[in-house]
C-alpha cells in the first residue's frame, strides 16, 4: 500500500513538471523558426533586411540581410511569417521585428498574429499576440505602437519588453465622431512622437502622440489621405500632398486621367498651419517623397521625371 502511495506521488509530481514545462515551452517558443547561427553579422554590415521566399521550400520564408558589401545572408527562416501582411517586417539597430501568423483561421478560431523580435545574436522573443495586428517600432526601440483588430481604432504602446504602457481609444485620436478606424503612419526620427490618421469619416484627421507625456495633438486635415499621393515628415510636422482624387476602380481612374481637371501639390505644416502650393498640373498625380527635411522629390507632371523642391 505504501509503495502505491509513493509511486502515486512521484507520478503526480512528474506529470505536473512535464505538463507545466510543455505549456510554458509552448507559450514562449511556439513554432519557433530556424535562426542561422552561422550569421555572425554586426549592425554595421547590414544595409537592409527583408523577407524572401525560400528557393527550395514552398511556404518557407527567409529573413535576409542585404549587406553593405553587396552580399546577401539569411538571418532566420520561418514557416509562418505573415508575408501577405502589408507591413510584416521592420529592421532597426540589429533587431528584426516580424509578424508571424500562428494557426489557420479557416480551421482554428484561436489563431493569432504574433510580433517577434529577432536579434542578430540568434535571440528571439515574442512581444505581442492578438488577432489581426499592425505595428511600428520607434527608432530607439523604446516603444512599439500597436493596433489590433479586436479593438477597432485603438492604438496602444508596448515597451521593449512587450508590456503595454499606454492605450488610446479611437475617440481620443479622432476629431470626427464618424471616424471608423485608425491607421499607423510613422515615428519621428528621435522616437519622441508617433503619427497616425483616422479615416472613414466626413474628413480625415491626423494625430500626433508625444511619448514624453502621452499628449495627443489632433489635426483636421483638408486633403485626401485615401489617394496615396502624399508623404508625411514627422520630424518637421509637415506633409506634402495633392488633391488628386481617389477612385473606386480602374475605370474611374482612367476617366479622370482623360479629364481636364487641375490637380495641385501642396506643402503644409500642422503646427504653424502654413500651406503653400508647390506645383499644378492637369489630371496628374505627383508621388511626392521627402528626401530630407529640406528636400521633397516628386514626379514631374509634365515630363514624368523626378523633380526636387527645396524648402
Amino acid at each position, binding site marked *: 500500500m505504501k509503495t502505491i*502511495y509513493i509511486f502515486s*506521488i512521484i507520478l*503526480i*509530481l512528474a506529470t*505536473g513538471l512535464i*505538463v*507545466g514545462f510543455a*505549456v*510554458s515551452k509552448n*507559450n514562449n517558443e511556439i513554432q519557433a523558426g530556424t535562426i542561422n547561427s552561422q550569421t555572425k553579422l554586426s549592425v554595421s554590415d547590414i544595409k537592409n533586411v527583408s523577407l524572401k521566399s525560400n528557393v527550395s521550400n514552398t511556404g518557407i520564408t527567409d529573413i535576409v540581410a542585404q549587406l553593405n558589401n553587396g552580399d546577401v545572408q539569411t538571418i532566420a527562416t520561418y514557416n509562418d511569417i505573415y508575408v*501577405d*501582411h*502589408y507591413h510584416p517586417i521592420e529592421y532597426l539597430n540589429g533587431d528584426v521585428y516580424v509578424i508571424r501568423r500562428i494557426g489557420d*483561421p479557416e480551421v482554428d478560431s484561436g489563431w493569432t498574429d504574433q510580433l517577434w523580435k529577432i536579434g542578430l545574436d540568434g535571440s528571439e522573443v515574442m*512581444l*505581442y499576440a492578438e*488577432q*489581426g*495586428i*499592425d505595428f511600428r517600432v520607434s527608432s530607439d526601440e523604446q516603444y512599439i505602437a500597436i493596433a*489590433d*483588430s*479586436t479593438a*477597432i481604432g485603438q492604438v*496602444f504602446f508596448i515597451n521593449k519588453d512587450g*508590456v*503595454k504602457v*499606454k*492605450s*488610446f481609444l479611437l475617440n481620443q485620436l479622432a*476629431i*470626427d465622431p*464618424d471616424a471608423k*478606424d485608425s*491607421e499607423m503612419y510613422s515615428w519621428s526620427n528621435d522616437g519622441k512622437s508617433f503619427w497616425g490618421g483616422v*479615416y*472613414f*469619416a*466626413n*474628413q*480625415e*484627421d491626423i494625430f500626433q502622440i508625444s511619448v514624453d*507625456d*502621452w*499628449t495627443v*495633438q*489632433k*489635426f*483636421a486635415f483638408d486633403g485626401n489621405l*485615401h*489617394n*496615396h499621393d502624399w508623404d508625411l515628415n514627422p520630424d518637421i510636422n509637415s506633409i506634402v500632398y495633392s488633391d488628386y482624387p*481617389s*477612385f*473606386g*476602380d*480602374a*475605370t*474611374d*481612374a482612367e476617366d479622370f486621367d482623360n479629364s481636364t481637371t487641375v490637380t495641385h501639390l501642396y506643402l503644409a505644416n500642422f503646427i504653424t498651419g502654413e500651406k503653400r502650393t508647390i506645383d499644378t498640373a492637369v489630371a496628374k498625380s505627383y508621388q511626392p517623397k521627402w528626401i530630407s527635411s529640406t528636400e521633397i522629390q516628386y514626379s514631374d507632371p509634365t515630363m514624368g521625371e523626378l523633380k526636387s523642391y527645396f524648402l
Partner: protein
Amino acid sequence: MLRKLTILASLLFVFGLMIATVGCDSADKTVNSDSVVLNDDATNHDPPDYVEGSITIDSLNVLARARYEEDLQNGTFAAAKTNGWVFNINMPSFYSQIEPVWKNKALGYNKCGNSTIGRYGCHLCCVAMMYAKWGYSNLKPPNLDDWSHNGWSHYAFFYYKDCGDLIQIPQALEYPAISRDYSYYPKATGYDKIYTALSRGWPVIIEIAYGTGSHFMVIYAFDGARYWVLDPLRPPGQGAISLWGTGYNSRYIKSIRIYGHHL
C-alpha cells in the same frame, strides 16, 4: 502522512500549471491614464462631398418609395410585402473589410506599401459577396485579392494605375474563367435601376461619396421605405443595415453597378 503528501503533491501540480498559464499573459498589462490633450481649435465636419449631377441616399429612398407606391396603385404588388419586405434577396455571405483575418492583408499589387483590405477593400468585399451569391463560397476577399489568372498575380486589379490596388471590371468578374455582364451607371443615372434590379433578384453595388474617397456597399433589400445594404465597413456578422439614419442619408451617389447582369 502519505495521504497528506499526496494532497500536497496535487497542489504543487496545480500550482505549476497556474504558473505556466499566467506566463501567457505576462505581456498584457494595461496602464491607461487620461493624460490626453485635445486640440480643441481644430475645425470639423464639412458635409459629405457633393457630386455634381448626383443625388443623395436620402433622395434615393424617397424615389424608391414613390416607385413602390406607384406599383401598389397599379397592382404590380398585389400581395405587397412578404415578411415585411418588398424585396429581400438572399445573400449567403457577408464579408467585412475589417475582419481580423484579412484586415491587414495587402490589397492588389500594393505598390505603395500601404494598401490593405481593411482600408481600401470595400469594393473587393462587395465583389466577393456577389461571388458567394453565384455559388463560389470559397472565394473570400483574400482569395479574390490573390487570384492569379492569365499570367497576372492579382488578376482582379489594374497593375499600371496608381498603387495597383484598384479593382478592374470586368476582369474581377471573370473568376474562374467566365466572362460576366455588368452595368455601370455614374452619378444619378442609375437610381431607377436599383428597384428594377432588386425586383429581378439581382443585388446592386452602390458607390457613395465617403470622406475623401468612395465607399462601396451591396444593396440587397427594400422594405417599402428604405433600401438595405450589406456594408463591408461594418464588423463581421453585423453587415446588414438600412440606408437611413446611420450617416448615409446625406451622402451622394457616385455610381450604381449591377454585376453579372445587364439592365
